[in-house]
């Protein structure tokens, strides 16, 4: 079976600046691929170019086994769906109507049924009739992800779907995307939370200054060497009871004790004899 997404030598230039340089990789159906990299590495540009939303100077993009150029708008929408990082919604439409926008081509009542089902999956079914502008940022992020899921596309591309959310919501969102991958979709997701990405994804692609710096299983792709050269971190992904965590500090600032795993493992239970507040 052909890959859901295949990039070959993808090159993008913006305002005379080379943003992506010969990036090649693919995403198979049934796989969740994490795209990580520092700010400005070219993650969003890569996603947009991969979907034809951004002009590219060189390279090829194949969606569902066909070159992107040969796909009609409708066919492309059938093969791939996109959740942009931007969460602005212009009008205060009810959540279920917004999610139903994802189910293009279905009759209205069926689209609405799909929308409610997707909202349930993201545990915001009770908010189906609430206007999206009357929601918290976290609620809206779930609604927009539900819109992505409602497309039922074989390739789901989500740009920072979990950014700015509380830990439980972040985990829920990546869990739901992962469930879609298990159900046979290819999922490509960007994240700045390396541990979260490493835990949820089958493979990680690391982008650095517009080029692919590493690609492989999370631990291999996010090796101490990659953490140092790409992210400027001294440390490693380490096992913890809840899954992989990132234990690292900034390479230059010696005094920063940024031991994330220490925080993750810190007890939130009250000490013996201390009453719950």
């Amino acid at each position, binding site marked *: 079976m052909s890959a859901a997404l295949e990039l070959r030598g993808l090159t993008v230039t913006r305002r005379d600046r080379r943003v992506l340089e010969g990036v090649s990789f693919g995403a198979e159906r049934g796989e969740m691929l994490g795209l990580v990299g520092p700010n400005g590495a070219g993650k969003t540009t890569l996603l*947009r170019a991969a979907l034809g939303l951004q002009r590219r100077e060189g390279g090829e993009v194949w969606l569902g086994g066909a070159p992107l150029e040969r796909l009609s708008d409708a066919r492309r929408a059938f093969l791939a769906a996109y959740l942009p990082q931007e969460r602005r919604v*212009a009008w205060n439409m009810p959540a279920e109507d917004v999610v139903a926008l994802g189910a293009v081509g279905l009759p209205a009542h069926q689209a609405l049924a799909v929308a409610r089902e997707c909202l349930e999956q993201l545990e915001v079914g009770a908010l189906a009739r609430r206007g999206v502008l009357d929601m918290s940022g976290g609620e809206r992020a779930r609604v927009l992800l539900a819109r992505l899921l409602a497309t039922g596309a074989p390739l789901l591309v989500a740009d920072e779907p979990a950014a700015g959310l509380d830990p439980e919501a972040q985990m829920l969102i990546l869990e739901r995307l992962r469930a879609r991958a298990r159900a046979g979709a290819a999922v490509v997701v960007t994240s700045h939370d390396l541990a979260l990405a490493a835990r949820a994804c089958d493979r990680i692609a690391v982008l650095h200054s517009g080029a692919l710096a590493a690609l492989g299983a999370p631990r291999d792709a996010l090796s101490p060497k990659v953490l140092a050269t790409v992210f400027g971190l001294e440390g490693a992904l380490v096992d913890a009871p809840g899954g992989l965590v990132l234990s690292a500090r900034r390479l230059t600032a010696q005094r920063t004790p940024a031991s994330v795993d220490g925080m993750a493992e810190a007890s939130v239970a009250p000490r013996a004899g201390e009453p719950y507040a």
Partner: protein
Amino acid sequence: MRLAALLVLALAAAFALSIAFGETMLSLGQYAQALSDPGSPPGEILFAIRAPRGACAALVGAALGLAGAVMQGLLRNPLAEPGVLGVSAWAGCAAALAITLGLGAMAGALETAALLGALGAGGVVAVIAARFREPETLILFGIALAALGGALTALVFNLSPSPVTTAEILSWLQGSVANRDWSDLPPALAPMGLGAALCLYAAEGLRMLTLGDESAAMSGLPMARLRVAALVGAALLTGASVSLAGVIGFVGLAAPHLVRGAVSDDPARTLAPSALAGAILLTLADLLARVIPTEEELRLGVVTALFGAPLFALVAWRASRSWRA
């Protein structure tokens, strides 16, 4: 559906009022005479003077209400209105030029000039819109285009040969449906019908734009085509409105907001109700213009601006919610 039925009823009521009342007060006997004999003097007042005028106001209101809803949906901006991209300014400018050139007396010349002006501006905007997707960029270009249209109109004033011409232009620019008769309607119906059809064709695209350009582009809809359809459709509606009644503000801004809540803020479902609401608003505004006892009859554009400005403030107040989000 219930909303549409309600609006149609309200429009029928507003239209009936606009026929029943006006500058001349009729006695009950005269009403009876008018109804039994439409050719009688009271009948003439009702059916040959007031009815076409009311129909004209309703038609222009509907066109502006629809164009306003389309512009708000396309630009994703609650403060957008039919003239935001400079279309009405250019329609007004072309008409002013036609008046100055002495074409005002020629049947249909003024109307054609206004429509051409609107289409010219609409064409420029459509070309720009194909190049720049962001609504902010489009609005900025629109402001520039509108300012240029306004400046050229001022230039026409400046160079106008006589005070009479100046007064004629000014009066026309303020907007009115006075003295319109049935024969004025058909020439406007064609561009309005075409414009409305284009706007309704673009409705799905407007709904999809709620989530932004990229989500819309990935939705599978032919967005480039729908965007141009919406722009050209709105330009036709606005141009035909200006050609029929001059430049009338606020109706296109306010109408969509009056119905938006009843259709769950859906930009596509806002279109038809907004057209009906615009028709009701302008029919009532024209009625007000006639019955307010002033020495010189109030111009329709003046009435909509007088009542529209406070509404505009209210709309801005309520819309601020979506900016904060």
